[in-house]
């Protein structure tokens, strides 16, 4: 079917385009405008509307064993919402996979990355993702506290062996990239270590956090995995931890590196309360390091739940749980923790955190290197995205919010002095063009011929939050799935993954390893197509040669 989105303002920074134009789709792809005598089978009038590629979220905890633990821990956080029996079954189940897909699609998002999946829980994550409708998705596999890697580093095994192991893990878990979370910190916590920083050493293994990060960074780079190593640094949430982030940036030594939810590392220890914003210093460092990308992890006020594979940090945060309960889970590798938390606008620390996120967004100059996240649900649920976009695009709105926050909190930040407002083109870069490039998805994030026909159309409104909350039209693979913010068609997406080349010998090595250590064959780590029970559940993304 030939479909035309007619007469909208097409904002497509990847193709240097910002003009009123038609967008044509055929066979699930964007195509060139046909000759004048060819008529579209379906025409959607977008006159006066904004047309962008479908948005891509690079870091949102939407599906994993840890996410599911949070659901089961907190029935009170998802009391049933209004019934909607006309929709597909379960699409209005609060916090369910079905609702996740519908809510993302209604905002014009078409690809979302779940960034923290333990390799042995990959099948679980893929099964959950298979029940997330409409959007495409991917997982990042978590390494860096796993015995195999730490033992390989202790024994000073070759980088090629570590590369083969990383490639084997990506293939077994069907992941799009590798994330490291408090490298070595979870392994150290098992040996009763309670504080762990970049140059601390994991007991028994004698390997430092820095060594782990650098080994994984090199492996991911040399394997040609498009997405650079995705790093959750040590010392998340602690006063003065900007030093840890700066040290990690320096440790990258020019190789590609992605720092996740930088807001949670944007803290100095100045002021009478020993807690201040260090966002300006971090932003300066990011601006100067062209090898580096970051996402923000913006905090918004309200009840949420923190879901993290940084088990050490979650254990230490358990005294701040609100409501007062948490789940701490230990496993091979990272484990994790679920700690409910309520960000309060009257709370000094929470107000600083909110400001730090916005400072990072506004002080990092290149919208292609700063990504739009709340670290859902850790800083805020992804449903707050429209409000954050509005704050980025309107300094008066920021002033209104700041007027309601403790002035002493804003005094230890630079937010009041920042006048920058994001343009629609910058928003399109940050949420479309740049994430596609970061993840190596050449056919997404833009509207050029050949791209996947994932398109979001928004009605112009001065209230940007309203505009971005309910897309006027959303197309997934060329198919209309959302009209006026309501899901009109239910369909199933794919999970994107990479399969770098590796030596075949690693298969034998992993078999022996799992046999010796666990008395098990490594098959329990694998996520085969047949287990998912959907048509074409996976899509392979090429690696760089």
């Amino acid at each position, binding site marked *: 079917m030939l479909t035309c989105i007619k007469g909208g303002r097409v904002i497509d920074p990847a193709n240097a385009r910002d003009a009123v134009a038609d967008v044509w789709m055929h066979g699930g792809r964007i195509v060139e405008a046909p000759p004048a005598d060819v008529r579209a089978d379906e025409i959607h009038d977008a006159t006066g509307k904004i047309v962008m590629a479908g948005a891509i979220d690079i870091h949102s905890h939407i599906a994993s064993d840890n996410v599911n633990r949070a659901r*089961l821990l907190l029935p009170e956080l998802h009391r049933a919402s209004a019934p909607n029996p006309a929709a597909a*079954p379960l699409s209005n*189940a609060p916090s*369910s996979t079905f609702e996740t897909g519908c809510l993302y699609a209604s905002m014009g998002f078409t690809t979302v990355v779940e960034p923290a999946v333990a390799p042995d829980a990959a099948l679980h994550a893929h099964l959950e993702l298979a029940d997330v409708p409409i959007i495409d998705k991917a997982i990042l596999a978590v390494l860096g506290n796993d015995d195999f890697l730490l*033992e390989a580093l202790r024994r000073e095994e070759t980088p090629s062996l570590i590369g083969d192991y990383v490639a084997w893990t990506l293939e077994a878990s069907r992941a799009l990239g590798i994330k490291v979370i408090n490298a070595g910190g979870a392994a150290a916590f098992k040996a009763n270590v309670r504080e762990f920083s970049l140059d601390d050493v994991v007991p028994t293994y004698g390997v430092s956090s820095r060594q782990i990060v650098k080994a994984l960074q090199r492996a991911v780079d040399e394997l040609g995995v498009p997405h650079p190593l995705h790093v959750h640094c040590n010392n998340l949430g602690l006063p003065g931890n900007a030093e840890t982030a700066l040290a990690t940036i320096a440790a990258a030594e020019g190789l590609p590196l992605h720092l996740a939810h930088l807001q949670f590392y944007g803290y100095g220890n100045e002021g009478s309360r020993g807690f201040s914003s260090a966002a300006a210093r971090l932003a300066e460092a990011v601006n100067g390091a062209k090898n580096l990308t970051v996402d923000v992890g913006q905090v918004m006020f309200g009840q949420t739940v923190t879901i993290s594979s940084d088990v050490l940090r979650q254990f230490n945060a358990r005294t701040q*749980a609100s409501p007062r309960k948490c*789940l701490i889970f*230990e496993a*091979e590798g990272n484990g994790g923790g679920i700690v409910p938390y309520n960000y309060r606008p009257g709370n000094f620390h929470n107000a600083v955190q909110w400001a730090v996120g916005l400072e990072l967004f506004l002080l990092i100059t290149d919208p292609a290197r700063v990504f739009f996240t709340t670290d859902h649900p850790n800083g805020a649920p992804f449903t707050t995205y429209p409000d954050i976009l509005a704050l980025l695009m309107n300094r008066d709105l920021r002033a209104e919010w700041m007027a309601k926050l403790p002035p002493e909190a804003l005094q230890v930040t630079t937010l009041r002095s920042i006048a920058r407002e994001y343009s629609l083109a910058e928003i399109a870069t940050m949420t479309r063009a740049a994430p596609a490039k970061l993840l190596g998805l050449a056919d997404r994030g833009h509207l050029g011929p050949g791209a996947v026909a994932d398109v979001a159309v928004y009605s112009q409104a001065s209230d940007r939050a309203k505009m971005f909350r309910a897309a006027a039209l959303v197309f997934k693979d060329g198919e209309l799935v959302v009209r006026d913010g309501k899901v009109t068609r239910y369909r199933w997406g794919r999970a994107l993954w990479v399969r770098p080349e590796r030596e075949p010998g690693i298969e034998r090595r992993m078999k022996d390893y799992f046999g010796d250590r666990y008395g098990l064959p490594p098959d329990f780590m694998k996520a085969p197509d047949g287990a998912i*029970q959907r048509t074409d559940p996976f899509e392979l993304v090429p690696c760089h040669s």
Partner: protein
Amino acid sequence: MADAWIDGSPAALRAAAIEAAKLLNASRLPLVAGLGTDVDGARAAIGLAAQLGGAIDHMHSRVLLRDLDVAREAGMMVITPNEAALRADTLLMVGPGLETAWPDLDARLIERPPAPEAADHLRRRIFRLCPGTKSRARHEEAVIGRAAKDLPAVLAALRARLAGRPCSKLHDARAIDRLAAALRAARFGVALWSAAELDVLTIEMLCGLVNDLNRATRFSGLPLTPGDHAAGVLEVCGWMTGFPVRTGFARGFPEHDPWRFEASRLVASGEADCALWISAYRAAAPDWDGNLPTIALTGADAKFRRRPPRVHIAVGRPGLDHDAVEHFVPTATLAWTPAKHKSQAISVAQAIGQIALALASDRASPC
């Protein structure tokens, strides 16, 4: 051998599915219960219940919800069986029924040495609290308390002594003190229990003890889960509905209420007027005495209490007759289990697929 029956008489699968669809369509509140099935069967069963506005319950919810109640009321620290085997230099085995809940307990935990990086030095120390009068003592270094009914008092005394509070009236106070010292000296201790044998307050006390021990050393909990794939079905229910089992969809959205949506109560009260009973791991029959029309998806040899169900479709055993995804105990995650002896027997998901097809055409036809 037949693979489907209507009122006890052999029938074609399609005819049985059509009959099942009629019963479900005529029902005001269908109950989908048992739920002894793999991940795909659970996805199909929960989806069907949502579509029909029914209610779901697992045959082991009572036990499953005890641990979950403690987690969601007070919190919990837990560890996977694999990691416990690699890491634990101290095991605290609490209450009776551990071997019953986990038949591989000896092979997968007790008899496996800790990982080299965890314990280069130590023999693993094992303690048992109130194992019940029938238990055999083998590996244990010390047994404290015997009868299961004494467990709450023993646990309370242990927790009090660990917190440095007096506890004078207990008759084996010295044994408690020795145990408290041993737990404090653990490098990484793991407490095991089976919720089938403990009440909620005892589990909460035990989890509080684990929490207390982490102030100075490392400790975690290992709750043993009930059978019939209860742990895996709980996961599926979590992601599909946001809630555990004992959830209803009658108002068009999921509502979780452990009392309201308990299967035998729904049957006894007459609220449920049709049941889809699923038991693919064993040919178990429902334990209620209700008279409501029942569709059973179980092994062919199920023994039903009073009369055969209105519709019985024989299904295969997951991981044996057909490929399956199941909760994998060692890692406490979901894993792929290829069929050990692939057979012609259909899966629960396939049987529900047949019923759903019949439902769609039944609804499309004028009545």
